[in-house]
Every structure is written in C-alpha cells, then in structure tokens.
C-alpha cells in the first residue's frame, strides 16, 4: 500500500514536472519583429481582394450605372433565351391512348367457359421377348372378361414373369 502511494506520489510529481516543461514551452518569447512581418504581409494583401470576392466593386457601381444596367439586361436576355430554347425543344406531349372498354353485353366473356382437360395417351409397356406369348394369352383372357387398361395388364404380366 505504501509502495503504491509512493509510486503515485512520484508519478504525480513527474506529471508536475511535465507541466513545468509545457509552461516553459508556452512561455517562450516570440521572435523579434513578428508583428512587423505580420503587418507587412497584411499590407501586401491587395486591398479588398479577399473581402470583395462576393461584393460588387464600389467604384464601378457608382461610375458605370449604364454598364451595370446593360450587364443586367444581358443576363436577363441570356436566361430568357436559354429558357425559350429549352421550352421550344421539348416535344409535344403524346395524347394518351384510350383503351376501349371490353366487356359487359357487347364483349367476350369467359363466364360460361368449360375447361376440357387433355386426355393422356395410354402408356405402353414393353414386355420381355420370352414372355410375349404368355402375356398375349393373358391379354386375350382379359379382353374376354372386360375392358381393362393396357397399363394394368402390363403390370400383371410383369408380376407373373418375375414369379417364375
């Protein structure tokens, strides 16, 4: 604990020394003739060149009122001419296309339409060559008993052949 407080005290003392250094730096005298050099630089700066960037020069404002009016008229003419040019080049607006209303009594309606699904073709099953005759007999029997789909017959024939 004592060591810590000693360390802190020493550190703060050093920080105090550091502030003393900063004070020394802050207290350094300015070089001789600084004010004169600054003033000379300010005088070298063209009078009003900085402040008049956005101002109209005062003398010409008084002396050349006619020129000022002419300049203003020229600006107005340029702006107006430019606006007219833009306006005249704009294409006339295309008239909106009216879409005739279809429906009701005079038009087509899908209200009574009946959907007819496409019928699929009967799939054909190719039987093995050695069971062709047996399958043919069974098919013949099936035809005698009643109408059956080709798919069912094919499957039965395949089952029989795998049973053997």
């Amino acid at each position, binding site marked *: 604990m004592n060591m810590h407080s000693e360390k*802190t005290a020493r550190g703060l003392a050093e*920080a105090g020394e550091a502030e003393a250094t900063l*004070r020394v730096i802050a*207290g350094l005298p*300015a070089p001789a003739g*600084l004010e004169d050099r600054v003033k000379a*630089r300010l005088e070298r700066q063209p009078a009003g060149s900085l*402040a008049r960037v956005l101002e109209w020069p005062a003398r010409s404002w*008084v002396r050349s009122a006619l020129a000022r009016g002419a300049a203003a008229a020229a600006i107005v003419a340029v702006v107006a001419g430019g606006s007219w040019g833009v306006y005249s080049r704009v294409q006339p607006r295309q008239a909106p296309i009216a879409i005739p209303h279809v429906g009701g009594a005079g038009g087509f309606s899908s209200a009574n339409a009946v959907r007819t699904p496409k019928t699929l073709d009967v799939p054909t099953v190719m039987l093995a060559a050695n069971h062709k005759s047996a399958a043919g007999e069974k098919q013949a029997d099936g035809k005698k008993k009643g109408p059956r789909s080709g798919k069912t017959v094919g499957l039965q024939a395949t089952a029989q052949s795998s049973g053997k």
Partner: protein
Amino acid sequence: MEIAPSVFEDEARRHVEEEALAALVDQYASTLYRVAFSILRNASDAEDAVQETFLRVLRHRETLGEIRDHRVWLIRIVWNIVLDRKRRAKTRPETDDVTELARVLPAHGLSAEQRAAAAQHHAHVLACAEQLPAKEREVMLLSAFEELSSVEIASVLGITESSVRSRLFRARNLMADLLEHERSLR
C-alpha cells in the same frame, strides 16, 4: 464628376478596420505565436500560423466590432489552424524537437551540456504528452498558458468549464502513468 458620399464612408470604414487590425497584431501576435509554437514546435511554422490567423481576420474584418473577447477569439482561430496543420503533417521525430528546443530555450548561465540535457528532457516530456488522448492533451497544453483561465480554455475548445477540469485531471494522471512507465523501461 461627383463622387457619392458612400465612397468616402467606405474608405473611412476600411481605414478604421485596418487600424483595428494593426492594433490586434501589436497586442496579440506574440500570444498567438506561443500558442502555435506549443503545438507545432517549429518557429517558422508557428509564424506562418500567426500570419494565416490575421489573414483570416482580415477576411472577416467587418465582424470585428461584434467580437466580445478578441483574445479568446484569436486564440481559437490560431488553435484551429495549428491543429489542422498538425493533422496534415507527419509526426515530428523527437530529435527534431531536441534540436529546435536547444535553439529556442533560454540559456542563462547554462553550459552547452546543460542546455542539451534540458532540451532532451523537455523533448522527452513533450513526446510523452503526444501519447495522451487528443482531448486531454489539448486541455493540458492550453492550461500551460498562465494567461488563460479555465473559462477561456473552455471557450477556445468549445466545451464546458467542468469538462476542462475533468480532462485536466485525467491528463495529469495519464501523464504520471506514462512517465512512470517510461522510467521503468529505462
């Protein structure tokens, strides 16, 4: 040919403004130089910053009458200029600081060796100060100017007086840690 009275008024106004500006230069150029030097630590750079400050004032000379405290206003301008320059410039090596400090530090009754040792010590302290966070460093640098109160420092930095105090407290503690750490490494 008749000249409008507004021309004379403008001339008179400009003359008054120029005189006011010259008075400001006489009164505050030295203070501004010291503020600039404490940051830039180079005599010619500091002088340039002072020049630029007064050029900015010249641009806004018509507002001089509206400024309440010219000293704080000017310090604020030079402060912003030097911070901007420092941001753009690369970090100065400590050896440059030692050379410059040896040149500018007062050497009354000191031998060449003592001067060199003092310059080295100050440069080392300044290098440690450079490691502080910007906010704390700025307050610490400005507090070294005895003519600036904490209220004025707050005004220059655009913060409250209590912030100045708390930042200064933190800066002192951090500085103590940094110097302690540096000493343990040696």
